[in-house]
């Protein structure tokens, strides 16, 4: 008990000494600011890369997680991992719609949405006065929807313009596309698969992945893309989603059907995990390699700081400051460098890119998917933690060196 109290007292004294030296180090830090700048910038780059990776995967994850409903069942051809790979026939839609587990409306019709999904090459011009601008091209997801589709999109809202007219080459575009390509306004004409389509409206859908899509009348899409009367996916509303495993088994055993059944929520969650895994596999190794470089830079800076202050450190030792206090003050300085470096990386990214709409190729449907760069406080803390970790490791060896600095030699040099 007494030993423990003595240890605590000794620790307190050491911490008090460390605090005094840290205050002095911080006061003289502006003199070493330029020398420390390389370390700060290296650490800042690492923090920025890490934050970008995290913000991208977080943004994508959120976009995909916001998509899909728990009680909606998505049906595709067996073996299809995306709607693009799937093909289904009207007869299959009828079999599924007639199942007693599917919710019916007041008229006794099953609530079912048959949808087409096409990876469309969109061409458009960016009109700026009389200046002739070459035609731009981008690959986007074109979804052919039916009347009942909106029942499966509770967050759907037309933010400008109006709904497309059935049987006409009109479409509505998601607001993520409109944000990314502001030149796509209501009334503008674009080219899809060689045909001219008019933008009749812009819709929102709770920041879901659907906002990266173009929606048009399913009949027009089938006709323009020569798909006959086939569709690609069906969405069903079940009376009780808990019946899904049994229902899936029933449909699997039905010789007339060859389908894959999954909840819409799960479908997009799987896509999210595939996409973010890819980003992390590429992003994290880059961040790790950069972090190693930044650690070396921090190490160099701190070694240089100690070399230039060896007499000062020796004087502290001669006065009676403990080696622990001296090492702690060096570590605190390394952490200060890392903190400032972390701010260098995080703040510009936050100020410029937070909420920015980025686009990436969604490998599962080969179309562009828009998502928001989402720099939350938690992500900033994670990036800053990495910066501080680099500072800690970079400061550790120099701190130990300062701790063991031979006073007599340092004072004599």
């Amino acid at each position, binding site marked *: 008990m007494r030993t423990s109290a003595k240890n605590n007292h000794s620790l307190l004294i050491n911490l008090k000494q460390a605090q*005094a030296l840290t205050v002095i180090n911080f006061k003289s830090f502006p003199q070493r600011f330029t020398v420390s700048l390389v370390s700060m910038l290296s650490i800042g780059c690492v923090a920025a890369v890490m934050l970008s990776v995290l913000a991208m995967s977080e943004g994508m994850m959120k976009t995909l997680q916001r998509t899909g409903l728990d009680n909606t069942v998505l049906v595709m051809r067996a073996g299809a991992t995306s709607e693009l790979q799937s093909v289904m026939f009207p007869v299959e839609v009828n079999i599924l719609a007639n199942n007693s587990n599917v919710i019916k409306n007041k008229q006794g019709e099953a609530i079912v949405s048959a949808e087409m999904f096409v990876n469309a090459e969109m061409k458009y011009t960016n009109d700026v006065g009389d200046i002739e601008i070459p035609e731009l091209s981008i690959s986007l997801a074109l979804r052919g929807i039916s009347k009942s589709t909106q029942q499966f999109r509770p967050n759907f809202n037309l933010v400008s313009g109006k709904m497309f007219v059935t049987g006409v080459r009109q479409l509505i575009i998601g607001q993520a596309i409109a944000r990314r390509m502001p030149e796509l306004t209501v009334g503008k004409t674009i080219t899809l698969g060689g045909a001219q389509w008019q933008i009749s409206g812009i819709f929102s859908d709770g920041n879901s992945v659907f906002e990266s899509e173009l929606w048009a009348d399913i009949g027009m899409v089938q006709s323009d893309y020569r798909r006959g009367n086939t569709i690609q996916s069906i969405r069903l509303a079940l009376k009780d989603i808990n019946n899904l495993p049994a229902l899936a088994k029933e449909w699997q055993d039905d010789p007339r059907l060859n389908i894959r059944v999954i909840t819409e929520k799960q479908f997009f969650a799987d896509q999210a995990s595939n996409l973010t895994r890819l980003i992390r596999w590429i992003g994290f190794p880059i961040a790790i390699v950069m972090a190693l470089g930044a650690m070396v830079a921090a190490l160099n800076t701190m070694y240089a700081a100690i070399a230039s202050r060896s007499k000062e450190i020796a004087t502290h*030792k*001669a*006065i009676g*400051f403990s080696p622990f206090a001296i090492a702690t003050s060096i570590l605190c300085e390394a952490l200060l460098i890392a903190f400032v470096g972390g701010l260098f990386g995080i703040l510009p990214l936050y100020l410029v890119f937070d909420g920015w709409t980025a686009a990436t190729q969604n490998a599962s449907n080969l179309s562009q998917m828009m998502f928001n760069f989402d720099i939350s406080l938690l992500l900033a803390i994670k990036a800053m933690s990495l910066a501080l970790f680099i500072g800690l490791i970079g400061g550790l060896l120099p701190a130990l060196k300062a701790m063991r600095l031979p006073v007599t030699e340092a*004072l004599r040099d």
Partner: protein
Amino acid sequence: MKNNNDIILKDINKSYQKGDNTVVVLDHFNLTINSGEFVALMGPSGLGKSTLLHLMGGLDQPTSGEMVIGAQRIDNLKEAQFTKWRAENIGFVFQSHHLLPVLSAQGNVELPLALTPLNKKQRQEHASYALELVGMSDRSKHYPKELSGGQEQRVAIARAIVSDPNILLCDEPTGNLDRKTANEILAILAQLNRDFGKTIVMVTHDNKAAEYATRVINLESYMLEQNKCTVGEN
């Protein structure tokens, strides 16, 4: 302990390894400095004067031998114990003052008090008193770059005495100063010895400086007298 600040070095050996060679600095060296003495250590360079000072101050340890300071044996202390002992018993004054440029004279003098349980107000009072003793009260808010060499050394002395150590170890404290300023510094040291009973050991090459001491030891002849000396490198 306050009454007994005797410094007793018994059969001290100190050698360094330099490549494959062993350089012997002190060979079976004996010395006693009594409480309240002001000793000037003189002699040619490389004889081991600074090494002796560092050993007495616990900045270095002998290869073998016994060191007793203030009735406490210190040659077998561990580093942490040495640090604490040094903070409580020893004040250093170096040839270069080694003041911290980012702290004012007052801040520099207060620094060693961070090792004591004194509160901020008490630390300020102690530092002000130490600065007053060395005649630097009116410069307490000045930073080292705003002070002359002599003034910096005065502040360094104030820093050395602020925690009231029994022993002051001075390594050529006037080496960088002109005669007039050196005399002022030496007068302060003599006053500290005379009026406050500080035991002072001062390494110097300056005969004039040595005149302020109560005892002068010429290390070369002292070692010869002991007939046990080996001249080595400092």
